[in-house]
């Protein structure tokens, strides 16, 4: 039981971090970023290149990953999403643009990094073992700690920094924020960059555990959408809850349903659909986003 | 006095712990213009949505023409003859004025959806009749010259007239008008007052929710005043102007007073 809970927390922390980026972008731009999973994969590959291939320190690799993805996010917002949002009133357009961007990033990753599964050397060796009740490799514990630190850092940033406050104002009421003198374009770009950066950081963290491959993008996006929906689209604490809930559900159901074959995700997805049908705004969402 | 067309009996609506409407009762008589006024947050729009069945009641009932209508689906209430208009942001943005009014005749349609699809003779005859009726309504509301304009291009005053045109198309017995004078200058308000009177003279009973005191005093046969979700007064415009409780309710909320007399 302890093992299941620990696994759940480990998964949940990473999931929460992915969901945070997605929900931030949604809250600011009303864009469901279909390319979020691809951004995560891209982050994994950047870390792989710098840490795994070039042999530079991991901290530097993670830093470069964060910067790279932030730049990608900013560019994508400025040159793709902003013009499309300005010209089109339909939600569909940005959603499809995001889908197109997902394909594009997949193509870029395929060309630059290839389609093979890539891994990097372990950060730390050894396994934490508490009486065989909880077994956890040290590197996972480190990654868990880093993910939690990122979440706390992000929350503090949103709460106390000037940029964070402006982003929150923008997310709450775009028009009011504009009237109050918030530079909507600039902060929209900042928010998008931040969201992409979070996705990249998770990629950079997880490449040390699970490795990275091209095919991970789509499923990651789907999972991230689910977490965001559980918590309520566009609600930042909601994303953390959504991530934790999905992490624990996965860990609990994987161990309890193992004997029934591969139905864990079916059960999770179906229960999510039922939950959303009853409570469309998720746990903490505002009506209709 | 005439028999009431609409009766509201002890209507209460709670949102969680918040009581938006508490024990409200009144009657609406045929062919009168009845206004509901009150400061911001007095529960006017809640009452409005309850009557048009866009919200479910917590307790109490609404009787229309002898039938209980509270908590029926909005389209059924509309079919019975209680039709609401919306504030001007709620329109069919990408349709022309004429298209909007034609489609709003749906209530009168006798052919079923399959009939429309196949284009049966009933459906085609109805289409013709609706188009004719739509032109008549547009003419009546002086919108004919804008008939082929896309709705989102209309100026505010015309948008509101379009809202009324859409309402009239469904041949209502009672038309509920949601703040028909909001944001209008004096001249526009007076034109709108005339328009609403004309609609009443077609035989439509009018129930309106409004902020603009001057217009309400001018147009209404009777007025109901809400404050903090309760009915505090009911009477003719003259009676309401004399009512101490009403004056107090309005004076107590200074910012509303400013809003009332400056616009």
């Amino acid at each position, binding site marked *: 039981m302890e093992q299941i809970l620990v696994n759940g927390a480990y998964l949940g922390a990473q999931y929460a971090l992915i969901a945070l980026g997605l929900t931030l972008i*949604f809250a600011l731009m009303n864009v469901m970023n279909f390319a979020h999973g691809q951004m995560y994969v891209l982050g994994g590959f950047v870390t792989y290149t710098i840490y795994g291939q070039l042999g530079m320190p991991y901290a530097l690799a993670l830093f470069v990953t964060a910067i790279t993805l932030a730049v990608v996010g900013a560019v994508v917002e400025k040159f793709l999403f902003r013009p499309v949002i300005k010209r089109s009133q339909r939600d569909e357009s940005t959603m499809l643009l995001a889908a197109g961007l997902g394909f594009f990033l997949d193509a870029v990753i395929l*060309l630059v990094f290839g389609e093979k599964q890539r891994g990097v050397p372990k950060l730390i060796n050894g396994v934490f073992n508490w009486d065989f009740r909880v077994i956890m490799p040290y590197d996972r514990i480190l990654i868990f700690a880093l993910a939690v630190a990122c979440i706390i850092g992000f929350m503090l940033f949103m709460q106390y920094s000037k940029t964070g406050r402006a982003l929150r104002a923008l997310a709450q009421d775009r028009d009011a924020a504009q009237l109050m003198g918030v530079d909507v374009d600039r902060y929209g770009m900042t928010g998008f960059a931040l969201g992409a950066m979070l996705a990249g950081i998770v990629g950079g963290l997880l490449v040390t555990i699970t490795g990275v491959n091209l095919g991970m993008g789509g499923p990651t996006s789907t999972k991230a959408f689910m977490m965001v929906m559980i918590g309520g689209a566009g609600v930042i604490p909601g994303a953390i809850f959504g991530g934790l809930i999905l992490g624990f559900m996965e860990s609990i159901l994987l161990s309890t349903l193992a004997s029934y074959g591969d139905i864990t995700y079916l059960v999770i997805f179906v229960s999510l659909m039922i939950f959303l049908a009853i409570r469309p705004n998720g746990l903490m969402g505002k009506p209709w986003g | 006095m005439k028999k009431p067309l609409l009766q509201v009996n002890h209507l209460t609506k709670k949102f969680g712990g918040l009581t938006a409407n508490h024990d409200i009762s009144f009657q609406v008589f045929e062919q009168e213009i009845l206004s509901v006024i009150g400061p911001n947050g007095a529960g006017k729009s809640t009452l409005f949505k309850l009557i048009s069945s866009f919200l479910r009641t917590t307790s109490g009932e609404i009787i229309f023409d002898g039938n209980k209508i509270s908590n029926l689906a909005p*389209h059924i209430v509309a079919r019975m003859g209680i039709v609401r208009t919306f504030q001007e942001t709620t329109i069919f943005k990408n349709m022309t004025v004429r298209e909007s009014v034609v489609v709003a005749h749906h209530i009168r349609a006798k052919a079923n959806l399959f009939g429309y699809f196949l284009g049966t003779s009933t459906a085609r005859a109805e289409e013709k009749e609706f188009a004719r009726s739509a032109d008549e309504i547009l003419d009546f509301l002086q919108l004919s010259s804008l008939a082929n304009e896309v709705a989102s291009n209309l100026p505010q005053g015309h948008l509101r007239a379009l809202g009324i045109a859409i309402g009239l198309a469904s041949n209502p017995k009672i038309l509920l008008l949601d703040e028909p004078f909001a944001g209008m200058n004096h001249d526009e308000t007076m034109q709108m007052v005339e328009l609403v009177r004309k609609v009443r003279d077609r035989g439509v009973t009018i129930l309106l929710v409004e902020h603009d005191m001057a217009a309400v005093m001018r147009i209404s046969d009777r007025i109901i005043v809400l404050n903090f979700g309760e009915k505090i007064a009911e009477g003719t415009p003259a009676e309401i102007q004399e009512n101490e409780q009403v004056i107090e309710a309005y004076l107590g909320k200074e910012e509303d007073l400013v809003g009332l007399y400056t616009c």
Partner: protein
Amino acid sequence: MGLIIMQNKKILFTALFLIFVLVIIPSLIVMTSRWDLYYTLSSVALLAIASAGVWLTFYIGRINIGQGAFALVGGYVTAILITKAGFSFWLALPFSGLFAAFISVLIGLPILRLRGVYFAMITLVLTEVGRLSALALPITNGAKGISNIPLPGELSFAGITIIPDFASFENPRMAFYYLASVLMILCFATLYRLSNSRLGHLCRSMQQNEELTSSIGVNIAAIRIIIFALSSFMGGIGGSIFAVMSQSIYPSSFQVADSINFMLNCFLGGLGYVFGPMLGTVVLYFGWDLLFQTGKYQMLIYSSLLIISMLVLPNGLLSIRLSGRKKS
């Protein structure tokens, strides 16, 4: 006068289109002996049918990323009915569409209340649920799927053969081409009729404002269900023929990427135009095929073109023609 000319023009266009699809294309294939094109074109027609369904849900203002699930349902129902229950394909085909529609009503009742991103996401999850159910359920045979589905047999009525046994053709692919293209034509005729009927006007009203639509006495819940069921019916039909044509169906036959592609087809062609999904499917399918020669750059060029088209033509390909006409 103008009206009559327009009608004649329409009839002319329809006739030309029918001749093109049913006579010219097959003759060209015979002349060039490119028999493989039958298969490609049949696929395009089937994808266009499924995309037409997605277009319908767009028409009532819902972003539907669940069509893959309904195509999968259609495919599996056909496969199971034919291989396990011994049904004729001609019976299994309508049954598959109806079953998909039935499922969509069950699911639609709760979820059609949702709008915007919420509906989009829940239908995306639905596609995943479809795939995972196909993997998990005993009757669908897991990841191995169902293969060796026989070709459609003879369809006869009162002893008269209406459609001969597909296996008796020298080239069954041609038979599939006719089947798929005739159904596609029927499907788009339905769409055209619908969008020009009163039902279409009501759908457009709902797309723009559901509250106002219900205030003019329209039972929006009923229309939503009808349209969603029709949409899923088309998905089911598309999936059903697809299963029989490829003689197999797997959980991976229709997945999230396919659901997104259906959506892209509609969007590229133009959401405001009935024939948008057909054009979008043709362009995307052949665009992808043509780019095959670019080798490893195929995906890159394809996705770039897609993004550029969204930037330049936010209202779809068909908007070029119409905006051109308006200016003149």
